[in-house]
């Protein structure tokens, strides 16, 4: 985890330094004289994390949130890819819809949450629907751009080899568009995760966001901090995993 610098001294890597800073902060939180009714001891929070994980309470909340994120992302990716192909094929539609999509993108969809709550009640349904709407746009816009960027020469070659439509999409367009399209999916995942947790937090029927809200309402700060830590961990894992996948994909395609 260390590498020598120009002068030959071993320097800890950035990741190691980040861990050290985090540990330092935790130690300060643990030992400093802080108002414990608003900043609980990290050891208490850790203790609750362990016991809630053991009892399965945490697992259920995490599972529901991950399921909401997963379903939304899956549907958003499917619709987004299909929409991208349509946008790419029909220039007139692209001219009209792309600026609209871009402005939908810039609009906070969460504001529709109360409307959907009236229609569907306090269930995971309105959360998933809005998360899908949020998730579609980055996939569609990035993939449409990616398809437009696929070299015309590749498509010509495919045509001169009499490639079927299926072969054209599967063998030429998909690999050509994959890196940029995956960036869209990665962005989509981040936004879907943020939206899901935020909506659970505003009002929900379960999930980590809801739990955080619930424990805030009952002023149980140890539990509240534990769920905030879990939310941070979930977003971090998602972010790290997808960034890694994206790197691998780029590497694979560029070879």
């Amino acid at each position, binding site marked *: 985890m260390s590498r020598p610098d120009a002068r030959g001294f071993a320097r800890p890597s950035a990741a190691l330094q980040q861990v050290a800073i985090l540990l330092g902060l935790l130690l300060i939180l643990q030992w400093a004289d802080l108002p414990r009714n608003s900043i609980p001891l990290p050891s208490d929070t850790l203790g609750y994390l362990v016991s809630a994980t053991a009892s399965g309470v945490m697992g259920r909340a995490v599972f529901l949130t991950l399921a909401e994120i997963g379903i939304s992302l899956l549907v958003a990716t499917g619709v987004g890819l299909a929409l991208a192909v349509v946008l790419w094929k029909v220039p007139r539609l692209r001219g009209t819809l792309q600026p609209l999509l871009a402005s939908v993108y810039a609009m906070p969809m969460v504001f529709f949450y109360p409307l959907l709550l009236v229609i569907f009640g306090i269930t995971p349904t309105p959360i998933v629907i809005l998360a899908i709407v949020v998730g579609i746009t980055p996939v569609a816009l990035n993939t449409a751009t990616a398809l437009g960027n696929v070299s015309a020469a590749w498509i010509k070659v495919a045509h001169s080899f009499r490639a079927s439509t299926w072969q054209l999409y599967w063998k030429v367009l998909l690999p050509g568009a994959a890196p940029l399209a995956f960036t869209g999916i990665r962005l989509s995942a981040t936004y879907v995760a943020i939206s899901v947790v935020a909506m659970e937090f505003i009002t929900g029927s379960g999930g980590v966001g809801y739990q955080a809200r619930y424990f805030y309402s009952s002023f149980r700060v140890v539990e509240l*901090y534990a769920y905030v830590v879990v939310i941070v961990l979930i977003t971090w894992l998602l972010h790290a995993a997808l960034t890694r996948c994206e790197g691998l994909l780029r590497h694979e395609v560029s070879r």
Partner: protein
Amino acid sequence: MSAARMIPVWPGWRRGPRTTSLLDAGILITAILLIWQLISNDELFSPPAVTLIVLVDGLTRGWVLPHLTATLTSTLLSFLAGTAIGVVVGALLGLNRWCQQVLGPTLVWLYAIPKIVLYPILLIMMGVNQQSLVTLGTIAAFFPLAINLAVALRTVSTTHLKVARSFDANPWQVARHVYLPTIRVPMLIGLRLAWSLAFLTVIMAEMVVANFGLGKLMFDSYANLNIARMTAVVALVFLLAFLMNALPGLWEHRFVHGGSGRYDGRLEAVEAAQPIIG
């Protein structure tokens, strides 16, 4: 943080096909209003005409005004504080190598966390007041600015810096003629995102707990099943968000293209868009 990590503009308004004719836009708006009219009913959400009447009533009789003022004040304060902190953090990350390597990735990752979950912690520390709201808004607003500034500062040309040094430029001249042209556009985009995120975050927080604000009004109307009022507030908030996005967008467009022409397209990064999400 590579250039691809920069938080750029949305696509479509600069290089993408900007061919939406007035006719197309008109058809689109008519279609949206028509669908709204067709699927609306009094139990779920009000039709456009009713919404407009309630909204006008709220603005003229004034029941919406204290909430509107509260939301806009909190947004403005969050934006100002977020800008100040964002500039300092961005400059540190952009100019100091250690900060960039160790703290930069952390910042990008923290940006991916739903900031609203920090609200209960702030509420417990500060209580239900404007201070906790503005603190949360500040946290949300500072990220895009800090990240964009940090990345932009890393892209300042070393050749330009060398030239400036060989002309014996003083620090002010270096800042004015080398740094400013490079960071101008990313900064503008960061500022706009900061404003939008402050607005969104403040309203989301108001939906959770607040004394005043459009978010509170919206959610109270939902809780009391005052559907017409809820629809009107949602429409108002959406209209505000749209204006806040569209107006600086137009200005920025002119600024980028009509300016000195120094803009070199660096922001056409892979991550071609940035939505406004809490």
